[in-house]
């Protein structure tokens, strides 16, 4: 076996096929899948461990605290300590709980999230599962985690967990709509459901600048809508109502402790990675470098850098914003995000059919019109909503 070096990605692929070729022919497909699964799980489990540490440290710095810094140099071994702690903690199952469902729920949350991770292409040819209907598959497996939330909430036999589960299901179902509708623009304009081809299509450069979807008006709006819906879908602040620790203690996870809780936690973070990866693939150019002179850096490095930036954004938002209320969340979804994502489809159609405009300044005009098609309704909806509810800054009077 000779490794032909053409690119780092090809090297990895060749390495894998060489390993697989060592096995007997009947076992080769199984081995191939197993290697892919192992790589995905190890990679993202490592990122998970790192993210918990970075999140705690980052939140600490945002809050003017040093964050965890006791275990190992700069607290680097904190995730290991956390893991050991959660493993040796007592696993408490409430006496009235449904033991089987209570046990299965964390797995039902974790498994679809891990499955969704397999679909994300980390580089050209570097997706564990590269299928024709990848995007469809992503959303299909994503829906299963709602069942996990229900199972956890119901099996714990606790009113707070039931409320949390109801919130979780309602929120995830509602936000799936804008989430899917905002990806629809990308699917329409790229003409494929395959994630790697969508990423591939964003690989060209225009005077050294990338041709990512986010640099089009529909792409920008879709990116923002998708990001908001993704935050809600992965239960992150400010949409972390299913956990809602100030009102619902821990939501559907209230009655979980020890390693089951850690599995929930992991499932949530895997979900966040998956949806961040999807955001990157759909709108942020996938594995492509931002500038043409930087293409010598391997694609998966670019992907991981972008993933890091997405996670940093999630952490930053979590450190800043208070949580919205459940009815406001629903209103926001149905009255703001859904109409805007529908309008965004219109904007994408406009962008598509004006692609033939050739006169000077056509690009700018298209951009302005397309952007206005979403921005103006946004301003209108937000202001009418605020006026209706009488929300706004106030001026205070003083007693004489």
């Amino acid at each position: 076996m000779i490794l032909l070096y053409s690119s780092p990605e090809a090297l990895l692929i060749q390495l894998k096929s060489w390993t697989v070729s060592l096995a007997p022919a009947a076992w080769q497909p199984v081995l191939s899948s197993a290697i892919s699964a192992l790589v995905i799980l190890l990679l993202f489990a490592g990122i998970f461990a790192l993210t918990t540490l970075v999140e705690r440290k980052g939140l600490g710095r945002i809050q003017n605290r040093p964050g965890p810094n006791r275990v190992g140099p700069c607290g680097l071994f904190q995730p290991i300590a956390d893991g050991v702690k959660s493993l040796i903690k007592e696993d408490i199952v409430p006496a009235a709980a449904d033991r089987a469902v209570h046990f299965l729920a964390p797995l039902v949350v974790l498994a679809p999230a891990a499955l969704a991770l397999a679909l994300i292409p980390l580089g050209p040819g570097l997706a564990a599962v590269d299928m024709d209907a990848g995007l469809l598959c992503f959303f299909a497996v994503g829906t299963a985690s709602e069942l996990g939330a229900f199972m956890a909430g119901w099996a714990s036999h606790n009113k707070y967990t039931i409320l949390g589960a109801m919130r979780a299901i309602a929120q995830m179902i509602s936000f799936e709509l804008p989430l899917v509708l905002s990806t629809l623009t990308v699917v329409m304009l790229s003409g494929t459901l395959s994630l790697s081809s969508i990423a591939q299509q964003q690989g060209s450069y225009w005077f050294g600048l990338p041709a990512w979807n986010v640099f089009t008006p529909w792409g920008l709006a879709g990116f923002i809508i998708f990001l908001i819906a993704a935050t809600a879908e992965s239960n992150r602040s400010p949409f972390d109502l299913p956990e809602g620790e100030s009102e619902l203690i821990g939501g559907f996870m209230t009655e979980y402790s020890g390693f089951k809780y850690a599995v929930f936690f992991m499932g949530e973070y895997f979900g966040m990675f998956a949806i961040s990866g999807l955001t990157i693939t759909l709108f942020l150019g996938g594995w492509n470098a931002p500038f043409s002179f930087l293409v010598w850096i391997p694609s998966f490095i670019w992907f991981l850098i972008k993933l890091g930036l997405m996670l940093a954004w999630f952490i930053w938002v979590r450190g800043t914003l208070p949580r919205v209320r459940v009815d406001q969340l629903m209103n926001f979804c149905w009255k703001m995000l859904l109409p805007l994502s529908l309008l965004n489809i219109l904007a994408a159609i406009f962008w598509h059919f004006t692609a033939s405009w050739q006169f000077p300044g056509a690009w700018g005009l298209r951009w302005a019109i397309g952007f206005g098609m979403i921005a103006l309704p946004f301003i209108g909806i937000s202001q009418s909503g605020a006026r209706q509810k009488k929300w706004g800054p106030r001026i205070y009077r003083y007693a004489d």
Partner: protein
Amino acid sequence: MLGSGIIKGLLETARNFFGSFRQPERLVTIEYPEQQRTVPENNRSFPFLVFDRNDPVKGLRCVSCKICEKECPPQCIYIETEKDSRGKPIKHPKVFDIDISVCMSCQICVEVCPFDSIKMDQTYELSQFSRYDALILHKIDLAKSNEYYHQIKPTEAGLVDEQLAAEREAQIAKAKAAAAIKVAPATASPTPKPPSPAPPAKTEVPA
């Protein structure tokens, strides 16, 4: 417009994020076991008993008057007076216990003490493995020297020493006067000792 306030908040937290690396006044955390906090002079934790002349047993200023025991709001002080061989109480505590699991560090014993013998300490690393006996401080644990008092609270201790010296001088003067009176009338009956708030006259304050 919707979102502007959120962006403003995000910028503020970003400023704090970077600020906590660059501006030390933002990162106020003290890494406790390695860094110790410098406590201000007024800081108080739990009471201790002051002794003079490097003698933690005989040198205690406490005369076992039990005022602090009476005034202590949570009643955490227990005192027994020493008795001499004939069973007559002498001005020295036989037992002086403070249950610091009950003590609420209010300093009222210090304020009411007429002999400046009980003062507030500043140690705060007092964890013990037992909830009961380990947290009851006995006379021997409580006794600390006047030098120690000077060390933790220089200003206050200086004032106390001045005051004690003044009282002692006043008492010596008074004793002299009393002696003079005693000499003059031949029908000298033993005058009852005035309930002076001063410590025993032989007390010497180390320099």
